[in-house]
């Protein structure tokens, strides 16, 4: 009983860890998508409806972008550690062991965070270069 109980507990913990890292995989792309929608929506409200002052909107969105990028750096660093590339190349992670799955999720999270970061920078560039609604 004790041996089996121990095994089950460890499985459970492992499972909840991996469930957590599955969520983290989706975090960066979701944050990018939210940021994108927020930018479009608030600039439209400012320029088309005139409900928000454009300059304040622009600066706030730039601030949000900075926060998002800080979150991505932190997230990317965590994913990098989970991936642990120094412990062997990802092409060797195909043995189906729990350890491989764990590192694979880190690898995927890292790459998705990187591309979400680039996309967020691209979304922010117009805010930096274009002023006003013209």
């Amino acid at each position: 009983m004790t041996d089996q109980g121990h095994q089950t507990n460890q499985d459970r913990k492992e499972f909840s860890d991996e469930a957590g890292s599955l969520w983290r995989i989706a975090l960066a792309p979701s944050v990018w998508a939210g940021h994108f929608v927020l930018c479009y929506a608030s600039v439209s409200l400012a320029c088309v409806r005139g409900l928000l002052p454009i300059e304040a909107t622009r600066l706030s969105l730039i601030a949000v972008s900075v926060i998002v990028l800080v979150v991505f750096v932190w997230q990317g660093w965590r994913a990098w550690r989970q991936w642990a590339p120094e412990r062997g190349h990802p092409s060797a992670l195909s043995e189906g062991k729990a350890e491989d799955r764990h590192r694979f999720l880190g690898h995927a999270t890292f790459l998705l965070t990187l591309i979400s970061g680039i996309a967020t920078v691209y979304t922010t560039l117009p805010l930096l270069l274009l002023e006003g609604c013209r």
Partner: protein
Amino acid sequence: MPFRALISPPLAGLAAAQRLSFQRIRGRGLRTTAAALVLSGCSGRQSVLDPAGSDAQALFTLFVSLLVGAAILWVAMNGLFYWFTRRSTGTLPERSGRMLILFGGVIAPTVVIGAVLLWGLSLLPDQRAPGDGLTVSVLGEQWWWRVEYTMEGVEGSVVSANEIRLPTGQRTDLRLTSDGVIHSLWVPALGGKMDMFPGRETRMSLEPVEPGIYRGQCAEFCGASHAWMAFMAVAMMPEDFATWLEAEAQDAAEPQSDAARRGLAVFQAAGCGACHTVRGTPAVGKVGPDLTHVGSRLTIGAGRLGATLDNIER
């Protein structure tokens, strides 16, 4: 519709237009001839490849750079493809392969696309930069252009149609809107295009550099006669422009000849004034284009026909 009466053409205007086209031909002669050998068909009064305004020039530079960049990339990619499939077909060390993917597949595209994005975005504010005092308001109609000139610090405005005249060497504000459907104003030789929306005002500005006569075209499908919805954009030396605007602000000239007087009588008897305005006469209709000084315009029917007497009689 014989209203020759209205065509008491300010001959000075016609002569100025001719002088303009002559200047353009002379000024651009050498360059155009050299280019014509390579790019015949790319020059002309409605071509982005023959820029005559500072905005069009900036877009042209961007276009040529993208084209050259794309050509280099294409050759390099095909060269690599050839090299790795025909010349060096052995396996690549894993480390070099990974480096190739990291630089060629991640870093290079990110940097190149980022640079092009930065460049393109940095051009946008210039194309909408505030003007130097002259504002041309254009209202898109189905299917013609209502044009109104206002000068900063000068009371009143000058209404015209289907022809936009701009002074060279200065930036002119364009305020665009539309009636009913979406149009888009584009003079390829002078700058980029801007959509015209019902109930909204969009803005752009143009800075012609070389005097000349360019063709503008509606660039957003707007119904049956969309393809016919054109206009002439005339870039004039600032002093010529001032003279023209002053003349344009005057009421229509009194008919001088018998034919002209007869035309005025027909215009009034046929009720043309219900839709068309001719300043200085009882004709104050707002539905159709303002026909004051129509004789001095370069085309009639929104750029469709040359302004000859035969065409006007149709």
